[in-house]
């Protein structure tokens, strides 16, 4: 750990000024504001499908942030998995549970004030902690750290076992989803002329 820290960026105080941001920092901040705003709208809006679409903006913005942090491969995986699959699944779920157009009155539960208090408290605590701890840390972004070649090398040289374990987990999730979404023995078979609300196939990857 000490070698890791020694290899990291300079830790001395006030190594860099916050008042003269680099170009990357400016872009990062602007995209960050967009991500945060989209996330806030996503958890507060009462239109269900709009919430999912704002989540698309937030997660897409995060992919841009990953690109800015030179983690290129992670960024594309984020786009592929989150925007291409997770959000589509979420929208699928919202539509199958009859998300109405317009506001739905039951989107929020009664404990919004408590939730707001907890959220603000956690934000205040963690921001104080993080700012205090990493005020003077500087990320050196020179030298690409996350190209596909680098990712492939570390993933298949150091992380093979977790990778394989993950494939087993995915298989389990696949089977679980199939089992869950099967209709059992004709009891719940859709009648002719009735709109079928069950998904035809579970989609997994």
């Amino acid at each position: 750990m000490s070698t890791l820290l020694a290899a990291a960026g300079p830790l001395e105080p006030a190594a860099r000024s916050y008042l003269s941001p680099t170009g990357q920092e400016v872009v990062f901040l602007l995209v960050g504001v967009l991500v945060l705003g989209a996330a806030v709208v996503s958890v507060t809006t009462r239109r269900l499908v709009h919430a999912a679409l704002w989540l698309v903006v937030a997660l897409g913005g995060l992919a841009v942030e990953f690109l800015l942090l030179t983690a290129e491969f992670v960024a594309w995986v984020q786009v592929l998995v989150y925007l291409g699959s997770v959000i589509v699944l979420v929208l699928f779920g919202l539509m199958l549970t009859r998300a109405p157009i317009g506001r739905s009155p039951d989107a929020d539960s009664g404990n919004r004030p408590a939730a707001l208090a907890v959220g603000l408290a956690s934000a205040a605590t963690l921001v104080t902690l993080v700012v205090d701890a990493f005020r003077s840390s500087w990320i050196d972004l020179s030298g690409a750290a996350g190209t596909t070649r680098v990712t492939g090398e570390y993933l298949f040289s150091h992380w093979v076992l977790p990778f394989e374990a993950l494939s087993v987990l995915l298989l389990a999730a696949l089977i679980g989803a199939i089992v869950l979404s099967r209709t059992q023995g004709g009891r719940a078979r859709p009648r002719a002329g009735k709109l079928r609300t069950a998904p035809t196939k579970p989609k997994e990857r």
Partner: protein
Amino acid sequence: MNLLDTLLRCVGTLVAFLVLPLVVGQAEHKVMAHMQGRLGPMYAGGFHGWAQLVADGVKFVQKENIVPAGADRKVFQLAPAVALLPYLLVLLVIPVGPDGMVGQVVDAGIFFVLAVMGVGVLGALMAGWASANKFSLLGALRTAAQLMSYELPMLLAAASVAMAAGTVSLPGIVDAFHWWWVPWQLIGAFVFFTAGLAELQRPPFDMPVADSEIIFGAYTEYTGLRFALFLLSEYAGIVVLCGLTSVLFLGGWHGPLEDDLGWLWTLVKTFALAFVVLWLRVTYPRLREDQLMRFAWTVLIPLALAQLALTGIIKVAIS
């Protein structure tokens, strides 16, 4: 790479994005007509109706843009852009010729292409839900299910090529191409092309827009320019799919005189494949929804996995 160069590449991509889909659309009119023993458009523009699509465009622009009363206006109006823009981004990274004849080199080319193409499905989902129409919603759900199912074999087939080439960069793959890759990757090419057809909802995989069942699927309520944008995204999708297939499986710019005429080879291969797409539309009837799903999960995915295994074995054998 200076600013002028970047600008020039972007403008070039934009021009290609605006011209090539129209060429495919016009070809669809004429090819379909001749295969069915008709002449197709003959009047617009004079010579064999070459300006038919321009006339169509003018007509679409003149039409009123109707938003249904019960619709979610913003989402409804935004949906065509979400459906169209991913194809523009993808076109930016497809290489057409050697020595950097590409809009923008992306290190993880295949990955970028497939990731961004996956975003296009959001457009159809948004359109179908926001239309406040039962048939639109059904069409959107069918689209989403179809695209999610067919993305998997497409990714696996593309992974096989990436494995063969040892890189995921699109120009890198074309550079590594040899002629014997064509028989080697034949199954992969079939899977990729078929899955791509399904992603574009082209016949015989056009259940999401099956007019005899659900009118026009997610696009039922659209009129005028917005409808034209959806049509344009379909044709742009054909260009992108055929371009990708020719780059990944048919060697892109490789051919006689490739140093001078490499870009022409890419275009020729792309349009030959586009012709096949139109041909399939005229030839085959539409599949049923459950047949479509079964085809993806029981035929294409096992085939793609077999191709992946074959690629691995041969790759190990020759290295």
